[in-house]
């Protein structure tokens, strides 16, 4: 989360005091992002240094009203259109666990997949409860909950696909046509050993 850009966005509506920025930040991110007022002032200081905001008034920081500069507006517009990093290195912990499970003799990979599936669905149930309990017009909260729900659902879909792939590999390895062949794929052998 970029706190500086969120503050720029709030200032793009109208000039504001630090205290008001803090309360609006929390309300507009569905109250899921705690932000203390000290963080707000440190961030504003940096934005002011970089020429992205300007302060009206002198002395105590609580008495200063901040407004966005033209450079700040340009920075905000650019940031909104810049894609976040969607390509992390493929070292997802869950993927690693499942790959490792394939190598551990006597491990039922399907049972491991199911344990993770259940856990992910339980977390999803909690996010859905948040959504169900919220007012229907609380759009920020629904957007935050949806983002988490769809991210988690992608994990469930991966687990489902893993289940099917491992079963198919197991069937290929044990089908009568495959039996006479001495050359069994190493991956398929692993799947056979660990599946029920």
């Amino acid at each position, binding site marked *: *989360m970029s706190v500086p850009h969120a503050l720029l966005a709030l200032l793009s509506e109208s000039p504001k005091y630090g205290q008001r920025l803090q309360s609006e930040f929390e309300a507009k991110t*569905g*109250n*899921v*992002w*705690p932000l203390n007022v000290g963080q707000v002032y440190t961030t504003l200081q940096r934005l002011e240094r970089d020429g992205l905001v300007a302060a009206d008034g002198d002395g105590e920081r609580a008495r200063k009203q901040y407004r966005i500069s033209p450079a700040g507006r340009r920075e905000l517009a650019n940031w909104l259109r810049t894609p976040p990093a969607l390509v992390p290195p493929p070292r997802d912990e869950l993927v690693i666990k499942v790959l490792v499970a394939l190598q551990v003799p006597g491990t039922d990979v*399907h049972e491991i997949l*199911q*344990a993770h*599936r*259940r856990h*992910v*669905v*339980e*977390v*999803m*149930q*909690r*996010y*859905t*409860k*948040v959504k*169900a*309990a919220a007012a229907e017009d609380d759009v920020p*909260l629904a957007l*935050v*909950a*949806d983002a988490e*729900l*769809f991210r*988690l*659902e992608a994990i*469930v*879909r991966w687990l*489902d696909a893993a*289940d*099917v792939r491992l079963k198919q590999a197991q069937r290929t390895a044990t089908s009568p046509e495959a039996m006479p062949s001495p050359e069994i794929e190493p991956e398929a052998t692993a799947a056979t050993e660990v599946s029920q």
Partner: protein
Amino acid sequence: MTKTLELRHISKTYGSGASEVHALTEVDLSVEGGELVAVMGPSGSGKSTLLTIAGSLEQPSSGQVLVDGVDLANVSRSEQARMRRRAIGYVFQDFNLLPGLTAFENVTLPLELDGAPAKVAKTSAKAALAELQVAQRASRYPDELSGGERQRVAIARAIVGKRKLLLADEPTGALDSVNGEAVMRLLRSATHRGVAGVVVTHEAHLASWADRVVFIRDGHVVDQTVAPPGPESLLAAGDGR
């Protein structure tokens, strides 16, 4: 407390000999009034068979089905049919509304088939359509309704009268995720008013509307969720984000 739906050691086998297929094996499932249970599983896992057996649309090869404490094997076929009409509501993926009838007529139909007086049927149908927020569309035909409205009418038809059990097979069909969620909200509030609900789905975000999620694989119930803790801890301050 009597469970509204109780499946005991249900097995279902299709075919025989070499072509024998075990759709369900020794499945146990209980659902109380006021509870919404989701059954999740891949295609061919037996989840739809489970639902048709629970709704007495199909007989199990072995095991018992109890609806509201009544063992379906111990009652006559006509009594079973009566229970299907009166106690059980069904929602299907493709809505299954009758095209020649208006929304209102679709909802009164199960009551009229059951011999309810016209006045009673009309009052109940009005209440059900109002509950599903489609009262103003009552005189429309299914092809004049949007996908979301059609599904609301289908749910109204499933809960009209004094139903005890609501069974839904992939009830959000081809709806987009927000309209699908609206359907799940309605099923959830319908069940929380006292009906027992079972919804079959392969989508986790829809299943997550249920109080309990049961996982089915190759005809076996393999797992289920435990009651999730409250949402307070989830989005609250100080979880390191």
